[in-house]
């Protein structure tokens, strides 16, 4: 077989790099500086920032350390997307946006200290409340030093993917719910808590369940921006759904979110469709009647006849068997553990 040529074609493009600047205590508000730079094939955002700092403006301030996408300290936003500066190339972005200019800003959702450096304390404080460490279960972690705590492959797989998280905060910066409610824990904190809660050697799951609920587990809007930006492909929004499942399995069933989940499963199993008109009461209890009445009045005004029955198309019932067989498999797996 002929050797495959992997060397990329060398290109270069004179571009305008817009960098957000701000010095706390000095500037009233952030502003942008424009730097002209020859952007070459393979040049990373970090390489560009260093070049600007070396050759154009020594006062430009940013965080970076390992240059290997592992220390998680160089997260910035490039054209709005949270990325690791050290593992993100500039040229493809310039091409994607078909512009000769690219904007580099600090992470969102955290206070800016200077230029591209943010204060990460708020997210670290939230993480600390989640007990993000292993509290040994005496059943799985033997006391005797010479005995190991063994795990099966499946047990490891349950959280292995989450150990790739480097706490770079890209997901936190991209999070829609943190932007709208700064008290919400954010993707990385919940995902990191899950990594320990699902670990068979751990014994602190119940405490973390409650900590997650207290810090807004059900406030995740599932926009899935965190999945898009995660440089390690850990898919935090998926893990948030798994954490929701954990809390329900562990008995925290008195939340609107858990009632919604229960109703969706029951309705789809029975009707193949969610009984939307009745959701307010199912989720919020008797308080929901008011919402139903408002919705019905609106429909009547539009000349539609309101209904409290599920609206479905013919033939949509018929997945009950599927749900039954799924349940049987899940029960079997549960017993295997």
């Amino acid at each position, binding site marked *: 077989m002929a050797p495959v040529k992997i060397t990329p074609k060398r290109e270069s493009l004179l571009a305008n790099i817009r960098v957000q600047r701000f010095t706390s205590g000095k500037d009233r508000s952030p502003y942008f500086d424009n730097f002209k730079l020859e952007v070459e094939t393979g040049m990373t955002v970090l390489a560009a920032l260093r070049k600007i700092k070396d050759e154009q403006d020594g006062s430009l301030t940013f965080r970076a350390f390992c240059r290997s*996408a592992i220390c998680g300290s160089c997260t910035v936003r490039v054209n709005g997307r949270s990325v690791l500066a050290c593992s993100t190339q500039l040229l493809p972005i310039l091409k994607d946006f078909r512009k000769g200019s690219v904007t580099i800003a600090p992470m969102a959702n955290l206070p800016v200290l200077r230029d591209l450096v943010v204060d990460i304390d708020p997210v670290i404080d939230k993480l600390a409340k989640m007990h993000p460490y292993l509290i040994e279960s005496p059943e799985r972690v033997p006391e005797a030093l010479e005995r190991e705590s063994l795990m099966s492959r499946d047990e490891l797989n349950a959280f292995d993917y989450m150990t790739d998280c480097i706490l770079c905060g890209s997901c936190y910066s991209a999070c*829609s719910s943190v932007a709208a409610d700064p008290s919400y824990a954010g993707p990385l904190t919940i995902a990191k808590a899950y990594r320990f809660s699902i670990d068979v050697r751990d014994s602190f799951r119940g405490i973390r369940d409650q900590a997650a609920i207290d810090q807004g587990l059900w406030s995740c809007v*599932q926009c*899935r921006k965190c999945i898009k930006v995660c440089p390690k492909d850990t898919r935090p929004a998926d893990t948030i759904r798994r954490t929701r499942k954990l809390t329900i399995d562990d008995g925290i069933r008195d939340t609107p*979110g858990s009632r919604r989940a229960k109703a969706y499963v029951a309705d789809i199993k029975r009707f193949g469709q969610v009984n939307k008109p009745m959701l307010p009461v199912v989720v919020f209890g008797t308080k929901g009647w008011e919402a139903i009445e408002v919705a019905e009045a609106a429909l009547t005004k539009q000349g539609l006849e309101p209904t409290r029955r599920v609206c479905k198309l013919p033939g949509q019932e018929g997945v009950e068997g599927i749900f039954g067989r799924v349940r049987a498999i899940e029960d079997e797996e549960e017993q295997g553990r």
Partner: protein
Amino acid sequence: MTRIHTADAGTRTPFRVQPEMSGRLTYAFYSGCCFQGADARFFDILTQVFGRLDVDLQLIPDAVCCGAGVIEERSELASLAINARNLAGAERMGLPFFTPCSTCFNVISNVQKRLAEDPRLHDQVNRILAPDGIEYRGEGRLTHTLYILAQDVGLEKLGERVTHPLHGLRVGSFYGCHTRNPADIQGYESADNPTSLEDVLRVLGAEIVDYDTRDNCCGYHVAWPNADLSKAMTGQVLQGAKKQEVDLMVTSCPLCFKNLDGVQPKALAATGRDFQLPVLYLPELVGLACGMSPEDMKLDFHVVPVNVRL
């Protein structure tokens, strides 16, 4: 697994559906919950507009609700199984799977992706479906209104059908999250810099206005667990567009439409703002530009009045 981020990662060459000899395009239609029941008018609007563009829809029989990611909070396997069943319906029809709902698109795309990546899971799902005589082969293609308009019908043909261009109308475009995140769900276009919606709007004659909440989330999916948060998010999107003095907003996602139009008065009241910004669901505006009347597009069903004379 480390991903080296390049902005064009995930952007493959678009795979167009080739029209039949008659020039018509046919899709297996998966309705999702917002094209039936109290929202059945969306189905009428969509079929009328697609009719003008020589697009035919055939309903997938027996398709069930995708679960919107919510049933995954109880069982991921159940979500995989029922959506594999939904996809198998389109496979049996030999047609591309089309859903106009961005959330269905997202959820079912993820199911397709996971089953393609994990043959063991694929087999397990097929064993669950087998007693019903259903097999999911994993061959089909999944598409959304955006890509049917921008790529399959194509901008040229769409332009030919425009009889009432929107000259001078200042429009704020809003994709919503679920056709964009994560970037790898289908690969029709760049997830960081998508252009399909603006491409379509430009062909209709609109002037595209950029605004700083364009990439925000409308908050629809948090409405049940946390209504206040949902309203805050909706309000932020609307205020960003309002600041740029757009004439109206257009969204390609029916759920974003429900929040941006239906919840608008409450969302703005919650944030202490008082204005009305008309929001249209993309097919409605395409219909108007192609000469259909506001009555055909049932614009009087909007919560925020829309007064567009073309």
